[in-house]
């Protein structure tokens, strides 16, 4: 573990990314202390510029505090990003592991199913799912998970294909180990590094999809989110730039930081790739 951290530290950008994400997480956790008011409440003069009328980042057309929206929205974005990723990684591992390990007909069937999901444009599919399921936190998580697992499944399948013919797996067969045990205890731990890397990058994608859905008005109407803020401000982009800009910057920084972390994890978990330079 110490070794892992030393290698991770070598990538300064990744350390910076981790720092930024830590800040955003702290911001999300302390949201109710920083801005105890409901972010949907109308708290002041509409369309106040930043740093006027007591608004740090201005207010929107109805007089809601943009800064409060960003702080509370961070919780939504991160929560959806992480949960959706967890769910889709889980589905992906399940499909990929069975397809890669058993091969043959099972592989064919599972991979054809995966391909069906891959051929549908993911964002449109997500919109469709949320529209059918009624917008809510859980339906958004489901929609994001459903559109993003195929990549993980392909990756896990490839890793399983590579590892399952290694001699230590054959040795487990000769000891009489069951298939499920071999998959979970012998092969999966050897595939974790690429899954972690891809998973970390998927969090960023999930946040983007969530923002996109909220922008289109398909977010959970009871929950403040960055995408909702942008959607609310887009008609006044030229007259009140701050309403769209600050949530946009928040998304940008978050996604960038997560990508940097993913990059750093990749360097730390696959050290040989890095040394090749």
């Amino acid at each position, binding site marked *: 573990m110490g070794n892992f951290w030393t290698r991770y530290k070598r990538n300064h950008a990744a350390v910076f990314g981790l720092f930024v994400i830590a800040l955003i997480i702290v911001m999300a956790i302390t949201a109710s202390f920083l801005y105890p008011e409901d972010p949907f409440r109308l708290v002041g003069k509409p369309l106040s510029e930043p740093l006027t009328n007591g608004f740090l980042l201005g207010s929107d057309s109805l007089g809601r505090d943009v800064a409060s929206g960003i702080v509370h929205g961070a919780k939504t974005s991160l929560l959806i990003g992480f949960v959706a990723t967890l769910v889709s990684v889980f589905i992906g591992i399940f499909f990929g592991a069975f397809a890669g390990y058993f091969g043959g007909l099972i592989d*064919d069937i599972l991979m*054809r199913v995966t391909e069906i999901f891959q051929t549908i444009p993911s964002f449109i599919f997500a919109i469709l799912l949320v529209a059918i399921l009624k917008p809510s936190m859980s339906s958004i998580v489901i929609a994001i998970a459903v559109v993003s697992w195929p990549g993980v499944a392909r990756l896990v399948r490839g890793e399983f294909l590579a590892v399952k013919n*290694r*001699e*230590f797996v*054959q*040795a*487990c*067969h*000769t*000891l*009489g*180990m069951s298939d499920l045990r071999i998959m979970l*205890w*012998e092969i999966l*731990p*050897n595939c974790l590094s690429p899954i972690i890397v891809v998973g970390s990058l998927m969090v960023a994608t999930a946040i983007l999809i969530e923002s996109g859905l909220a922008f289109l008005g398909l977010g959970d109407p009871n929950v403040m989110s960055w995408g909702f803020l942008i959607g609310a401000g887009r008609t006044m982009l030229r007259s009140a730039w701050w309403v769209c800009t600050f949530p946009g910057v928040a998304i940008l920084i978050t996604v960038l930081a997560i990508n940097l972390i993913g990059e750093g994890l990749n360097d730390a978990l696959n050290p040989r790739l890095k040394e090749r330079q």
Partner: protein
Amino acid sequence: MTKRLLSINDLSILLPTGADREYAVQDINLELNAGETVCVVGESGSGKSLTARAVMGLLPAPHVRIGKGEIIFDDEDLTKVTYERLRELRGSEISMIFQEPMTALNPVMTIGAQIDEVFRYHVSMSAKERVEKAVSLLVDVNLPDPAKIINAYPHELSGGQRQRSMIAMALALGPKILIADEPTTALDVTTQAQILELISDMQKRLDTGVLFITHDFGVVADIADRVIVMQHGKIVETGTTKQVLQKPKHPYTKSLIAAIPRLKPRKARSRAAKVVLEAEDICKSFGGGRSFFGFGKPSRDVKAVQNVQIELRRGETLGVVGESGSGKSTLARCIIRLIDSDAGQIKLGDVDITKLSRSELRPFRKRIQMVFQDPFASLNPRIKVGDIISQGPILQGEDKDEASKRAYELLDIVGLDRRSFDRFPHEFSGGQRQRIGIARALSLRPDILVADEPVSALDVSIQAQILELLDEIRAQMDLSMLFITHDLRVAAQVCDYVAVMQYGKIVETGPTAELFENPKDAYTKSLLAAVPGKDWHF
């Protein structure tokens, strides 16, 4: 007086800081004359390959670099020349062939195009001349149908043909020095013999100096004029082949030579009456699959094992020998039911295990266990050694404490420290890992051990230790062993009986001593004739 081609004086190569030693090689002195073959012998990690690479300027800089010393070629110090000059020399004056021809050749270029590159970068010739020259080179290295091979891609050729193409390329401009880095290690014995012959033919014709890197004393005995023995980056002994092989002075050389399995077969022990394993008419073929919807041509069917019969009696070691692709590993995997055979019976005592379902098979797994070839791939890197050894008994329903106790005992038996129990496999060397693999196989107290090339990935001295260990264990536990190997020397040392396989069939079988002295089948004869260093008696 022969011409001095290359002299390496006091060469030291630095390893990156934090490596297990400061120098990869230290104070190396080496001379090579025209028409001479100098063999550099040593075990893995001795620095022999890096020495060769240093001459070519192919050290993996900036991590590994030359610390001091000079490499004089034709009055020029190769450690000081510019990169451009080095490039001029490479390929035209000094060229190199590598161990694995499949990775040394570019897979997306035809053989002809790759030979052509050598001419294009070094001499000016018209395209037509270049093609003619390439064809004549391929003729020189005895490749059949050169006109066809020139348009072939590397994957379309066999291993031996690829290595011949590499040699053609290396010798294209008649270099003064040929550096061969284990050029035959990846090849079968019969092919190896042909390639060695080819190299010495070409050498005579072109008066080339050959610097030959190898770990195999048999090869040394066959081709070397002078020998340099390296250990831990230092030269421990040099001399003419005769001196070094017959009267080695340094203890390390002595131990290396002593570790080489003798080709003299052991005497078969008297046969026990009890047959523990009987395989009848085993057949296995691969391929023949179709796509998901049943479209497309079925792929080519390869008959890996055809109607093989095998009988293994209590306490004996049966060797299955053959070259790569002969089906010997497939046979082993069929017998231990890692893959299902297409036809035939495998009787463990009275039970035919080919018909058993996986759960019915589980109790029989105990009785037949396997030792694998690659000590680096055969242990799960994420599981502790103790768990690797004890998981078998636990799976078979043994108590956890009991299983750990057994694992500690097994560590003693295979000669490992008890503290190894809590370590991960990557902390061990190849030989130690193979011991762990053996301990795992023994953990279920099997009657039969299937060993698939258990020593082919190891250095000779380690190889000797592992063979000894296997033999001890076999005697101690009254095991029967099915020993798969490509190395006739190893087979001679450990096997009571030998079955020779070719193209999936057993062509000859018999007691080792008898079969080695009096081979009947033509293939067995050619295998025995190709063993490197067979005329060398030590």
